[in-house]
């Protein structure tokens, strides 16, 4: 299971974002033991991965301007891969204004 938790946002002087993502081992899976992954960014389109936890976090901006955070297990793709997402209420442009 991937769990998003927390998250802080600072509009000034720079856009900073922190989110965490936890991976838990499950029966019959190769996923890594649990832990938290924290990242921050000043740019959209970034992604980060943590080999130790076997997790990927990625920030994306939709057409409607929403900031989205996606989490998935490394090495998995297709219908089973994407496990968590958070849509932030503020748009990216609102941080800049």
């Amino acid at each position: 299971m991937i769990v998003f938790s927390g998250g802080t946002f600072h509009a000034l002087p720079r856009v900073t974002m922190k989110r965490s993502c936890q991976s838990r081992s499950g029966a019959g899976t190769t996923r890594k033991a649990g832990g938290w992954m924290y990242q921050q960014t000043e740019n959209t389109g970034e992604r980060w991965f943590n080999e130790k936890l076997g997790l990927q976090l990625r920030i994306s901006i939709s057409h409607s301007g929403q900031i989205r955070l996606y989490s998935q297990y490394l090495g998995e793709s297709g219908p089973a891969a994407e496990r968590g997402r958070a849509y932030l209420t503020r748009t990216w442009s609102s941080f800049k204004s």
Partner: protein
Amino acid sequence: MNLDLTPLEIALLDDAGSVNDLSIAYGTVQPLKNPSDRNSLSDLTEAALLKLFDQRLVMFFRASRHEGYGAAPSEMTALSREEIVGTLEADRDPEFIPDEDNLVFFVATDAGREFFGQLTSDSVLRPSGRIDRPWEH
């Protein structure tokens, strides 16, 4: 432009505002349609993505996971419909492991961006949270 898109197709077009891999599309479809099994999820996702492709609202390309999210779509080789179908069909096999150096990504075309710009904000659904797939429990 007057296209008859469903709320699900509009949600996927919203996803295509940035480059995304196919797993994001499945993750959008799951909470909106609550399919009862993996095949249904694949059916729904494939139909919606192909409709967007046929309307020339999105394009698909191959790249590595490292390069794909930040790729410039105009510099990538667009996949044909047959190649897209082949990828989505391969995804149906639970044992299929995609090549991390050759994943399929999708992103809106100029026509897709233009069309999305004409939509009202309340026409866009925004699924969120953990993607629950009951057949995996």
